[in-house]
């Protein structure tokens, strides 16, 4: 595989300022708003990264109150995902379900979030009880809402209760006003709603970048896979764009509470609003990183040209790109949706980045797409991305290799408010069920869900948004579809369970893990279900070959989930950590950890908060929250070894076609790994050998990882581990664990 070279002359000429506008109805929509509750408060800026208060809003009772941030909250939970889990624990009971009023959505940016000098420092962490997994989910999202919330005076926003009418929560961090408004005629879908609200709440054109809107769309109302769009105003395109809190269905909780949108109006952003303890160190660290991107991105990743889609062709070359519901790892048509195409199709003559100072700038945009289907047919829109996950999930995994259709699927997922990763994986499952006769045209209500049929794919999504037909069934997600298909006798239960790519109720993200034991664990041995937030190990395992032994893989599944959790405690993006790396990184000890960047993060935390930490302290900070979350899962009825089980498709070949397509590899493993002779054995016999070997190896991995994590072999954190981390200060946490020891 040769290094792709960017050729500016091949970039498509598209006027990136042109798109359909939706502002016509603004005045009428605004006039229909009715104030249900309004309070005033004193805005304040953070001190050393913290405002030292959070905001609680009950959308049912309309109660609005401030809460102090305690020293214990900072010491144990740091911020971001930690604050979210802390508030959620206090809000719910073991019997609480996702659609109960006491379930909360918590948004918290973390202490470092909002600095403008380093890449990837504008993140918000969103936490809620997931409709899909029924345990806490957390999602790391860009856009401006989190930083502007903090600069308006709050380290976190807790949303509880259920409204009986559609409402908008508006926080004016300049004037010190918090208002709950009834929003009876506001549009539903994000690309229309956020554009209208951004212009409605901005005081003038210069104020537009100071507004951020959190919203979802029509499909979130009729499915369990809803996500939240966090907006940011793109000054050059002069349009509202989004980043997504995608995983786990938080958008469905949002609409179940009948929240139409959250709007914040923050002060004009400047480089010192976070009031760090040591701005000089932050400035120097940020400039050093910007230079590194300038010098290395073009030869390492081209994130600035391609965004995360730069790895499509790498995954294909290493047989890791999910194709046809994770059956295969490559496809002859991948070149149609790899980065050589996206760097021509995405606008390059502009600045991308979902928060100020992100020199990595992966938030690419494809402009000028004229929609071919659905309620916005004929409209010209800007599509975010496509990110790698979308190209792989909506594309290769479903056999869709038409880039315009892929963009349209991406667009509608976004505006309808559903997770692209989840939708990709569940659609791939539907298509494989269709291929194998588990589904047919009658059972899908006429949808011909064959591989690559993008029109049927889109129609299923439109049905999901309308809450009708097979789209509504698909919107339950893979876990519930599996149960539904088995209950109705649609096919062999084992096959359905083997090919349904979910764990804990969450769909797998878009990497083929069959040959990567590290990634198998990285997906299944997670707190919140299979995603690549906790342990994206496939690249270091399969491409960079940095985890050669079983022990290396087990150790990686101790270290990296903790290291990566830390990003979510502080409001960092993970991508600037190990996509582009220092030129000398490969010669450094523990190169897979990117030691210079780890030190950057240690320095940024200390420079922001004034609290001296080391790289070892960083891991301890994460371990407190990670183990707290594990106990939280157990408290909610999951979080044990049986819940970490992986669908066999993620471990090995389920079908004869899969085996025979890579027979040479699999036969060799029978010789090398099992010490047996494949000659004379039939495919099914060899598949059985593989299943025994692969599931046994995965079970051994569980033992090794749990032991490293300080958990019992049933996956329960030991009392010693809790004490070591100081979590024994929380009697409720200890009580949960005691019941399982």
């Amino acid at each position: 595989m040769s290094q792709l070279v960017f050729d500016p002359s091949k970039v498509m000429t598209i006027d990136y300022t042109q798109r359909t506008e939706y502002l016509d109805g603004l005045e009428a929509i605004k006039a229909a708003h009715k104030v249900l509750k309004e309070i005033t408060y004193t805005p304040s800026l953070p001190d050393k990264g913290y405002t030292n208060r959070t905001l609680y809003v009950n959308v049912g009772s309309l109660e609005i109150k401030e809460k102090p941030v305690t020293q214990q909250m900072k010491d144990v939970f740091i911020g971001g995902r930690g604050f979210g889990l802390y508030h959620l624990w206090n809000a719910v009971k073991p019997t609480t379900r996702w659609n109960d009023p006491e379930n909360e959505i918590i948004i918290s940016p973390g202490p470092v979030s909002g600095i403008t000098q380093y890449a990837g420092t504008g993140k918000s962490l969103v936490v809620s009880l997931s409709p899909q997994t029924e345990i806490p989910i957390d999602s790391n999202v860009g856009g401006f809402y989190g930083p502007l919330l903090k600069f308006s005076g709050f380290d976190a926003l807790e949303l509880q209760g259920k409204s009986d009418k559609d409402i908008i929560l508006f926080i004016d961090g300049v004037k010190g006003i918090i208002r709950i408004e009834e929003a009876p005629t506001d549009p539903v879908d994000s690309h229309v709603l956020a554009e209208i609200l951004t212009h409605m709440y901005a005081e003038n054109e210069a104020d537009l970048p100071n507004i951020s809107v959190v919203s979802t769309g029509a499909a979130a109302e009729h499915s369990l896979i809803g996500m939240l769009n966090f907006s940011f105003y793109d000054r050059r395109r002069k349009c509202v764009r989004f980043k997504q809190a995608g995983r786990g269905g938080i958008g469905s909780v949002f609409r179940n509470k009948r929240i139409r949108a959250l709007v914040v109006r923050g002060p004009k952003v400047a480089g010192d609003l976070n009031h760090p303890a040591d701005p000089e160190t932050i400035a120097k660290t940020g400039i050093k990183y910007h230079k590194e991107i300038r010098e290395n991105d073009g030869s390492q990743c081209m994130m600035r040209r391609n965004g995360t889609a730069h790895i499509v062709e790498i995954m294909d070359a290493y047989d890791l790109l999910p194709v046809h519901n994770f059956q295969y790892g490559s496809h002859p048509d991948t070149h149609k949706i790899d980065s050589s195409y996206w760097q021509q199709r995405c606008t390059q003559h502009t600045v991308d980045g979902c928060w100020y100072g992100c020199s990595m700038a992966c938030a690419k945009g494809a402009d000028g797409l004229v929609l071919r289907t659905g309620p916005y047919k004929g409209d010209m829109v800007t599509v975010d991305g496509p990110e790698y996950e979308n190209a792989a999930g909506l594309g290769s995994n479903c056999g869709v290799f038409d880039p315009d259709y892929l963009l349209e699927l991406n667009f509608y997922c976004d505006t309808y408010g559903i997770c692209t990763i989840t939708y990709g994986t569940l659609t791939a499952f539907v298509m494989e069920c269709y291929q194998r006769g588990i589904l047919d045209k009658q059972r899908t209500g006429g949808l011909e869900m064959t591989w690559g049929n993008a029109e049927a794919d889109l129609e299923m999504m439109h049905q999901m948004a309308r809450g009708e037909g097979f789209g509504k069934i698909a919107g339950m997600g893979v876990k519930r579809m599996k149960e539904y298909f088995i209950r109705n006798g649609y096919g062999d239960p084992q096959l359905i369970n083997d090919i349904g790519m979910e764990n804990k109720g969450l769909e797998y993200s878009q990497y083929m893990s069959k040959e990567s034991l590290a990634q198998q664990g990285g997906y299944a041995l997670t707190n919140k279900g299979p995603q690549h937030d906790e342990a994206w190990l496939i690249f270091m395992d399969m491409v960079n070959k940095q985890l050669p032994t079983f022990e290396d893989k087990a150790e990686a599944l101790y270290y990296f989930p903790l290291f990566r959790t830390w990003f979510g405690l502080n409001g960092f993006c993970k991508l600037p950590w190990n996509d582009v790396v220092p030129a000398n990184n490969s010669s450094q000890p523990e190169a897979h950890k990117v030691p210079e960047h780890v030190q950057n993060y240690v320095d940024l935390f200390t420079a922001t908060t004034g609290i001296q930490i080391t790289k070892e302290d960083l891991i301890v900070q994460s371990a407190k929250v990670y183990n707290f979350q594990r106990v939280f899962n157990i408290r909610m009825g999951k979080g044990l070894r049986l819940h970490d089980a992986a669908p066999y498709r993620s471990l090995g070949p389920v079908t004869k076609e899969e085996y025979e397509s890579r027979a040479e590899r699999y036969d060799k493993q029978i010789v090398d790994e099992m010490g047996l002779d494949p000659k004379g054995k039939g495919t099914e016999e060899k598949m059985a050998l593989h299943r025994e070997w692969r599931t046994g190896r995965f079970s051994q991995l569980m033992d090794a990882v749990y032991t490293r994590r300080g958990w019992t072999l049933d996956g329960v954190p030991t009392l010693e581990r809790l004490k070591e981390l100081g979590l024994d200060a929380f009697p409720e946490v200890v009580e949960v664990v005691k019941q399982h020891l």
Partner: protein
Amino acid sequence: MKQLVIDFQKCDAGRNCNHECELECAIKVFKVDDPAQAALQIKAYEDGGGHAVLCDQCGDCVVVCPSEALKRNKLGVVMINKTVCVGCYMCIGFCEKDAFMRNSDWITPHKCTSCGICVKVCPHGALAIVDVPEPAVRII
């Protein structure tokens, strides 16, 4: 566009002057009595000759600025709007000539604006403001 240029046939890199150019820039433009804060920096090489760090108004910083704080004025000179700047320092990190600068006391960065103050005080007449075509906008 207006561009500050230096002629090292005339400039002796401070060997026989007092860095008047830097000092004048620091005092008149940035109101500080510290030549290290000037928007141009003349460095002498040990083995003779010298090197100048100065902005040639190439415009790369305009391309990477996320807040549109950097724009060309009617003379083609890249100017910073400090009220719009968010202090991200991408302009500094992406400047291949290291001509975008900052100091610890200011949150916003600074650079040469081809004002010509330094030209007037150079004892060797080594500095000049010239008019050159604007380069094409690059994809950075």
